[in-house]
């Protein structure tokens, strides 16, 4: 079998030569701690995003906050870290990448103490993807769930688009991580160095690269820059998050509606159903899901008007968008709609029949904030008795 020069390294033994060269410091503490924490935070985000249900949203958001904090740190450290942490030592131009690929093809083995051009491009791509993931995640969170700093601005439909992009970027980052690991494995074999261990110990076999200008780490400058960014971003985020969400019900529930309808069942927030559904319901109270629930004419008219003015069409929450389409076979029952079925697909049928829940229509048995019409995923708490 003919051996390609690019793969010749696989068949050589130069360990004796490398062992003779004393190791030099390459990855400073900032880079190594950043790398370790990033692995942790991205793993948490991936696990809670790809595998766990929306019950784990809180942890996913925490992971995302840590990721963006780390990305900002890395951008700062790229200006103030030691030599190989600095972006000025990232030679990721097309020309450099092309030259590097040609070197590999020719079987040459010029040492790179820092990132080689392809590795540097990978680091930058990972940072860009991570920033994009956090950005689209925050937009989706604001638009779909009306939470976070963009809740006041992002519409539901724009949030859905952001979520789609977020999902694509998430698959993209998995691919990048895969390529990154493959690249590290390839390069480790090619140069006969354990690059993974170098990222832990911070050292690589020498000699030092004299062509690269020396830089000392400037931790104080980095700390100041981080404090400046945090001082602007954290209070800004808190202030924006406190603003009322776009199209989130804020008015008080009509007391007559709460009293009369709430006498027999959970007083469904008016924003859950469309005007057409409320209209049909209020015109058929004498045959209301199998029972007579009639009210006198004045009360019927006043409650009907409240429901009409606060129906789903007036709002932009996930809940107000989920039941626009009703089941033609049971056109007034929210729990028979395709949207309700989809949102509750992971809940066992037996949960709803338990006494602690009391039926599919008892939203507030599990949704602690059901009465507000928000239905935040973090506020779901299925009664323990219902899970046995």
């Amino acid at each position, binding site marked *: 079998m003919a051996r390609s020069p690019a793969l010749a390294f696989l068949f050589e033994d130069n360990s004796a030569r490398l062992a003779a060269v004393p190791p030099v410091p390459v990855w400073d503490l900032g880079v190594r701690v950043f790398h370790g924490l990033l692995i942790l935070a991205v793993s948490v985000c991936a696990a809670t995003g790809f595998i766990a249900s929306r019950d784990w949203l809180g942890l996913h958001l925490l992971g995302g906050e840590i990721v963006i904090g780390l990305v900002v740190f890395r951008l700062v450290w790229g200006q103030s870290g030691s030599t190989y942490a600095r972006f000025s030592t990232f030679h990721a131009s097309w020309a450099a990448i092309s030259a590097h690929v040609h070197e590999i093809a020719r079987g040459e083995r010029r040492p790179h103490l820092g990132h080689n051009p392809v590795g540097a491009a990978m680091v930058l791509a990972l940072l860009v993807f991570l920033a994009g993931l956090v950005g689209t995640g925050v937009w989706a969170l604001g638009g779909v769930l009306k939470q976070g700093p963009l809740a006041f601005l992002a519409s539901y439909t724009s949030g859905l688009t952001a979520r789609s992009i977020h999902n694509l970027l998430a698959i993209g980052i998995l691919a990048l991580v895969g390529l990154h690991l493959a690249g590290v494995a390839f390069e480790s074999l090619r140069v006969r160095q354990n690059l993974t261990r170098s990222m832990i110990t911070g050292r690589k076999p020498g000699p030092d690269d004299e062509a690269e200008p020396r830089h000392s780490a400037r931790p104080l400058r980095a700390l100041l820059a981080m404090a400046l960014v945090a001082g602007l971003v954290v209070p800004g985020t808190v202030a924006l998050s406190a603003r009322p969400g776009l199209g989130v019900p804020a008015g008080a529930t009509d007391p007559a509606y709460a009293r009369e309808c709430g006498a027999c069942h959970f007083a469904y927030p008016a924003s859950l159903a469309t005007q057409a559904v409320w209209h049909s319901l209020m015109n058929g109270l004498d045959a209301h*899901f199998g029972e*007579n629930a009639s009210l006198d004419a004045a009360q019927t008219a006043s409650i009907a008007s409240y429901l009409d003015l606060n129906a789903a069409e007036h709002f932009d929450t996930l809940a107000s968008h989920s039941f626009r389409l009703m089941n033609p076979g049971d056109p007034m029952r929210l729990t028979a709609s395709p949207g309700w079925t989809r949102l509750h697909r992971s809940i066992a049928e037996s949960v709803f029949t338990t006494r602690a829940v009391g039926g599919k229509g008892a939203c507030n048995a599990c949704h602690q904030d059901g009465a507000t019409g928000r239905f935040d995923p973090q506020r779901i708490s299925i009664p323990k008795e219902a899970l046995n």
Partner: protein
Amino acid sequence: MTRFVILLPVLLAAAAAQAAPGPAQQAELDAYTGMAKAADPNFGGFSAARGQALFLATSKTARPDTPSCTTCHTTDPTKVGRTRAGKEIGPMALSAKPDRYSVMADTEKWFARNCDSVLMRACTPMEKGDFITFMTGQ
């Protein structure tokens, strides 16, 4: 003390047995007496036994989901019931829920709805009076 604890259920049972309509409940009963007499000049007073029978009966004309009062209220009027939508209903017995049968408009609203659901017709003044007489004695 021990003697009192032993006596407590006896005392409670005695109190329940002696439960009687208060002024508000009596006003409703008087109103239904007037209506019953208007409907039938030979009306001879309400009967707790007829009220109990009405409460426990299974209707032949009911809507399918509500064959009896007891479907939602359970057979024990001193216990909480539950609507088909899963919401608790306070006990029907006056002893267990002292504000029962005290607001005529509410009483009429629920008779209008529930008689229609269970019997598919309106209840007569006599049936309403019998029912309240039974429940105020519970």
